[in-house]
Structures are given as C-alpha cells and as structure tokens.
C-alpha cells in the first residue's frame, strides 16, 4: 500500500531533532546509571495525573467554608496547605493572597516560570510565554482583558513577580449564591486561572 508507506515514512521524517535528542540523552543517562526510567515514569505520572489545580481548589474551598482555616492560611500558607497534604517542590514557601473588592491579585514570573506546583501543578504554556511575562507587570488590566476579565476601575491590581523561591496562590472571592455548599461543590467553582489571578471563579448554577 503505497499510501500507507508514504504516511509511515512521513511520520518518521517528522520525528523532530529535539525528540531524537531527548530520546538519545535518556538512553545515555540510563546506560550510565544516572537515571532510572521507572522513576521518570513516576515523575511524569505524578504531574500529569495527581498534582494539579484541583489541589489548590480544595485549599480555596476550605478557606471559603472554614473561617479558622482561612485565618491560618493567611498567617502561614505553607503550613495550612500542608494540612491538606500538599507540600514540597516549588511550593516550599507559599504565600496566600486575598482578593477583596478593593484589591485583585495576579501572579507572574517575569524571569522564568516560577509557579506553585503542589497546589496548581505545572504551569500552562501561556504562563511561561513572552506575552504574559512581559505584559503582566506593565499592563495587567490589558492582560486581564485578554482573559475576558474586566474589573471595576477603582479595584487596585496588585501584581506579584515571583523573583525568589516564594510561591503565590491567589484566593479569589467567594461567589455569592453558593451558601451552604459543601467544600467539594465549592471546589468545582475554583478555576486554575482564578488562583493565578487571570480569572474569576465560576458562578454557581
């Protein structure tokens, strides 16, 4: 089948140079005993399947539902977040930022891609991209507009550039209309972007 062979060849020629180099390096590092491929698989599975924005959503939901937890969270976020079992790499020192009608927080890393992994997982491509990293500090309202978010003109926009090892988690305002909801249902309203500050929580339905 000429058509099939052609397709097959094209797939091979499209193996990018990067793809080949990554494969080659993994083989070399494995043969030299520097890495264990089973550990690599587990690292990937952890960040692809287990650690993600659902963790952060649970933190926010508890902060909405439990005033004592909320107080602990704003006093020492690293410890309060560890109560839910989330801790470690790229979240060693976490600070929770409180959105209010007067102040909206937004987080960026202009120098690289610093992001609170234990609560949000790995950052999306846009967070690491030049448009976001360049404009978040110079034109945050414009960036919010890119995300379809318009805030009142008298709301202060506070941008946090993650230049050190402190990681920031935005705690959005609790939407009205979800009174008496369980933490699980509340967590469904919390979007990843609302915890970065480029979005707002979903409205309860």
């Amino acid at each position, binding site marked *: 089948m000429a058509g099939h062979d052609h397709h097959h060849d094209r797939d091979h020629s499209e193996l990018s140079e990067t793809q080949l180099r990554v494969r*080659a390096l993994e083989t070399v590092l494995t043969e030299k005993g520097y890495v264990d491929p089973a550990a690599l698989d587990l690292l990937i599975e952890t960040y692809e399947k287990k650690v993600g924005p659902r963790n952060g959503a649970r933190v926010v939901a508890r902060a909405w539902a439990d005033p004592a937890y909320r107080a602990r969270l704003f006093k020492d976020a690293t410890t309060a977040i560890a109560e839910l079992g989330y*801790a470690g790499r790229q979240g060693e020192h976490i600070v929770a930022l409180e959105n209010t009608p007067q102040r909206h927080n937004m987080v960026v890393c202009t120098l690289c891609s610093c992001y609170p992994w234990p609560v949000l997982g790995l950052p999306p491509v846009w967070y690491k991209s030049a448009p976001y990293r360049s404009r978040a500090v110079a034109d945050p309202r414009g960036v919010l507009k890119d995300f379809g978010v318009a805030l009142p003109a008298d709301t202060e926009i506070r941008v946090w*550039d993650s230049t050190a090892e402190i990681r920031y988690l935005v705690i959005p305002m609790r939407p009205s209309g979800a009174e008496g909801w369980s933490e699980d249902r509340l967590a469904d309203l919390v979007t990843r972007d609302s915890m970065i500050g480029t979005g707002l929580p979903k409205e309860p339905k």
Partner: protein
Amino acid sequence: MNGAQDMGGVPGFGPVEAEPDEPVFHADWEKRAFALTLAMAMPGEWNIDMSRFARENRDPAEYLAMSYYQIWFAALETMLKERDLVRDDEIAAGHALHPAKPVARVLSPGDVLKVLHRGGPTERATGSKPMFKAGDRVRAKTINPKTHTRLPGYVRGHKGTVERVIGFHVFPDSNAHGLGENPQWLYTVRFDGRELWGDGGDPGTIISVDAWEPYLEKA
C-alpha cells in the same frame, strides 16, 4: 545577566493566548525532558540557581525561538556536558561511549514522592539583622551583572517600599556560580505602576518583586 529571559515590560509580544483544555504536556519528549531534568537534580551535581542560569544564558534570539521545554532540555545538556557526565559523541550515538563518573545519588522510583514532598527549602538560619523593615523606602540598585541575578531590569533604579521582611534566604547570585549559598535577607518590595512605567502607567496598579538585601539601597 541581562538577556531575553528578563521580559518584564518588554513591548511587542502581542496578546496572551490561552489554550482551552490545555494538556499538561504537548508531546512525549516534553514529558521525558521534564522528568530527566527533575531526576538529574538528584545527583547534586548542580543546584536550581545553576539550572536557571543555564536556561537563560543563551543568545536572546535563540531563547525567544525555543519552547520552554526546549530551553529546559538545552540547559540540561549544557550542565551535563560542562561536568563531563555526558559528551557530544554519546548524544550523537544515542549510547554511552565513556565510563560513567560516580555521582552521589540517583533518584529511585521508591524515593520519587518523598523527594518531591521534601522539595528544596531556601530559608536558612539567620546570620545578621535585616537592614530594612516594612514601610522603609528603598531603591532597587542599578546593576548589570554578566552573571545570574533575580533583580528584573524593569525595577532597577526605581523607588519602592518594603512591604514585608520575608526571611533569610539562599542568594541565587552566588549560588548559581558555585560561590556558596551566601544567604541574605529577602524582602517583598512594592512599586507604584507609575513609578515604573511613567504617567501613562495605570494609576491603580502596584507591582512587587521579592528582592534580596544586596539588590536594595536606602531611598
């Protein structure tokens, strides 16, 4: 170093385009490059600040043309080659051609979750008193080091206010170059949008950076 990685305020990159329902990884090689980078932190041949320097230390045009995981992978190759853990002929051959150098530790599957959970805290026991306190007016120094720094260009020379004394943390400018952790006081310093961007800046905008004491002077 001044380079393409220092993007704050650089014009012309266009709108932010978010991908709906974005997957965690976009290709299999991204997964492997990510995992290799994390796993190769385990032997202790380098630290996170050295990794960041290896990522940013490249031609600006090249930096801007690469995807983020391409940058990570290129930095990994650089650091491995610098320490003679891997050579170019081995990457070309796709096999080990030279004896392995002994390394202190290798990440085993059984240790993955423990190591991730532990992370790498950067706060250290204090060795001095902080020079500044909350409310102090400070100026970010005008510096242009050829070495690693975490003071973004857009705040250099500008006046701000110390908002919080964070703690005593590893100083990347030293740690990235094998000069020791050299911990320093770390502060959250906030700047008025108009101070940074002029009268055209949004008056309702406050921007903060986390800045180590050597970056700051009294204003």
